[in-house]
């Protein structure tokens, strides 16, 4: 946390809706509101500038989802990519799952840097040759060509979700994955697209009795039978797929008792969990609600072990934030590779990082003005009291349209990706 982050890269696109590093950190995928996926690749450190890690450059771009129209309900289905999750790499190609509200797709991204030349049956333009004209045979040779990265859809997992998909998560068995919408969670096999198993269903018989929805779900990083899902009431349920086919009954139920002194009409809304993430170790999980991030020990259900306030100064503004709908913003959170630090976004293009060991936290800003390439980021501070110090920003000056909902941390290095509306920022720490 003492390391200075310096900005490395800035990229404009449609509104970015998801950011995800792959398992090695070599690739970084972003999905946007227009249904596009852009993948960046980490380039090796240059010999000229050994003090910097390499840069991320565009590796591949493809249109993952298109807008659709549901004729039965007369409603549009947005092409916005809600989540991208990488599969562990098993061969030269890379695979990722991308999903919009209704359909999940498995994409194969492969490189082609050679082409075959010297075909017998077709000429260089591809036209078929008359076989009777051929007088001799030759063996085609592979010649190098400019690198071409191709993305092709290998599987389409459709028609399994009535409600909007909010999460997908690849299982540690590398064969299955789960997808969660507001009321149901399905388990898929990566090879099978025409059926999925429903493992959680919280839809009431009478929709008017609906008071709670599923907000996020994730598979345990090591135990392939365990997954968790969070709800709009601030609860997390851990389920064991060995216990029953339908996991409506949880194995563990995580909920922090409410603080009666801070109860208001907005208590439930701000307790709604927008993201849940297991630690890399698998021993902890982290949840993000509107004002805070909480770290839970999987062995303790009655309260989190750590709570970090992200922007407590907003607590007195909840009524206005309810009016302008900001109170429903879904912020994500992420762990660093060693689980020693966590990161989440806020408003005004601020994002926050918390060091779990030193208990120190820092607020940084992702904006063109404040982060010139190679420059060190300056910590930011929001003034909550009456007197505003120099360089501090007052709560009323915060721009609530500039929200950082999606962040990602490199699985090994101190490199982070921060999506600020339609700009992607990649920060890294300086190597001294």
């Amino acid at each position, binding site marked *: 946390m003492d390391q200075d982050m310096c900005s490395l890269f800035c990229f404009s696109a449609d509104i970015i809706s998801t950011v995800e590093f792959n398992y090695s950190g070599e690739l970084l995928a972003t999905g946007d509101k227009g249904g596009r996926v852009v993948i960046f690749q980490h380039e090796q450190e240059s010999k000229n500038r050994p003090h910097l890690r390499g840069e991320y450059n565009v590796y591949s771009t493809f249109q993952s989802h298109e807008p659709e129209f549901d004729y039965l309900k007369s409603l549009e*289905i947005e092409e916005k990519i809600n989540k991208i999750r990488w599969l562990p790499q098993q061969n030269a190609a890379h695979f990722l799952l991308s999903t919009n509200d209704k359909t999940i797709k498995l994409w194969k991204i492969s490189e082609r840097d050679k082409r075959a030349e010297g075909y017998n049956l077709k000429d260089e333009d591809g036209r078929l040759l008359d076989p009777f004209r051929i007088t001799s045979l030759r063996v085609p040779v592979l010649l190098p060509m400019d690198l071409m990265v191709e993305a092709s859809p290998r599987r389409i997992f459709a028609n399994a979700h009535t409600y909007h998909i909010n999460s997908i998560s690849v299982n540690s068995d590398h064969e299955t994955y789960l997808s969660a919408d507001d009321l149901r969670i399905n388990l898929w096999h990566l090879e099978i697209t025409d059926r999925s198993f429903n493992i959680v269903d919280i839809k009431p018989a009478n*929709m008017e009795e609906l008071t709670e929805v599923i907000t996020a779900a994730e598979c345990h990083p090591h135990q392939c039978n365990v997954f968790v899902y969070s709800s709009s009431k601030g609860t997390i349920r851990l389920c064991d797929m060995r216990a029953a086919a339908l996991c409506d009954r949880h194995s563990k139920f995580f909920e922090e008792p409410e603080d009666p002194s801070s109860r208001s009409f*907005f208590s439930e809304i701000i307790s709604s969990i927008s993201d849940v993430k297991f630690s890399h170790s698998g021993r902890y999980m982290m949840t993000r609600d509107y004002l805070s991030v909480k770290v839970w020990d999987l062995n303790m259900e009655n309260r989190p072990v750590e709570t970090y306030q992200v922007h407590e100064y907003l607590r007195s503004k909840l*009524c206005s934030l309810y009016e302008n709908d900001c109170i*429903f913003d879904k912020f994500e959170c992420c762990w660093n590779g060693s689980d020693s630090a966590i990161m989440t976004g806020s408003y005004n293009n601020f994002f926050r990082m918390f060091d779990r060991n030193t208990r120190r936290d820092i607020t940084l800003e992702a904006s063109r003005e404040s982060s010139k390439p190679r420059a060190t980021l300056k910590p930011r501070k929001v003034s909550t009291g009456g007197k505003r110090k120099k360089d501090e920003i007052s709560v009323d000056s915060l721009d609530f349209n500039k929200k950082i909902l999606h962040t990602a941390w490199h699985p090994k290095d101190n490199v982070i990706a921060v999506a600020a509306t339609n700009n992607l920022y990649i920060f890294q720490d300086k190597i001294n």
Partner: protein
Amino acid sequence: MFAKGTKRKFSDPGEEPALGAELGPVVRPLSSTYSLQRQSLLDMSLIKLQLCHMLVEPNLCRSVLIANTVRQIQEEMTQDGTWQIMTQALAAAQCPADRLVATEVLCRPSEALAAAQSPKPLPAGPEEEEEEEEEEVVVAAAMEEDVDSEANPLSSSSFLPAPFGAEPGWEDEEDDSEDEDSEECPSDAEDVPDSRRGDQVFGTFEIKHPAPPPDPALEELFSDVDPSYYDLDTVLTGMQSTPKMGPYDLLDSLSPHAAPALSTGTSCRSDLNELDHIMEIIVGS
């Protein structure tokens, strides 16, 4: 960014926490500011529920959270007894109107009473104070609306005789004008301070329990709202359902005490509500 509003002042500091507990669960001294705040929150929530975009399926999580907020407010108002006051006031206000509605009201009072008296776990006194101090920023727009409409309190109509057995046809123009008249004429009895705050506040209280007759304040509020989105089920599933309910029938479906009459009356109401909708367009805006 934030609307500049007056900072709420808690008007009855002496009557709070401990006393509130002694007085019993139902009677809780409420400042009118708090009631207005709660009222505006309720109105805002109902508007949000109804203004979901129909082009794309609405966000279910958001709808559920707003609906829960409305339920919370409704329960608290029921607990305070203000809900009951309002119910009675509006029951009396439903003049020449609707046989269907009137019949329901006849069946309701005991239910509403029972609901109001059933012990509900309330946040204890101290929290209310905290709650008020938290919500410092007043929603100016909604407040202004409430302040304006409060000038012509509907509660004056609480003194009209209960008109049971009247003719149906609550979308009649006659009805509208009658309601408007009753709304506009100032009632001396209503010129009272906070001791009658229940009525005063709920003069502007458009939420009705049971189904409302065409209410000018209501229509004004909802003149630009898509009326096809009244059903909570519709809201939650994003599908347009055929029976179109009145604007605040939403609350009926939310309320745990909603009468089962809702389902029986729906088929009749669908036609009535079509007419109501048309009337709103002609008269309302």
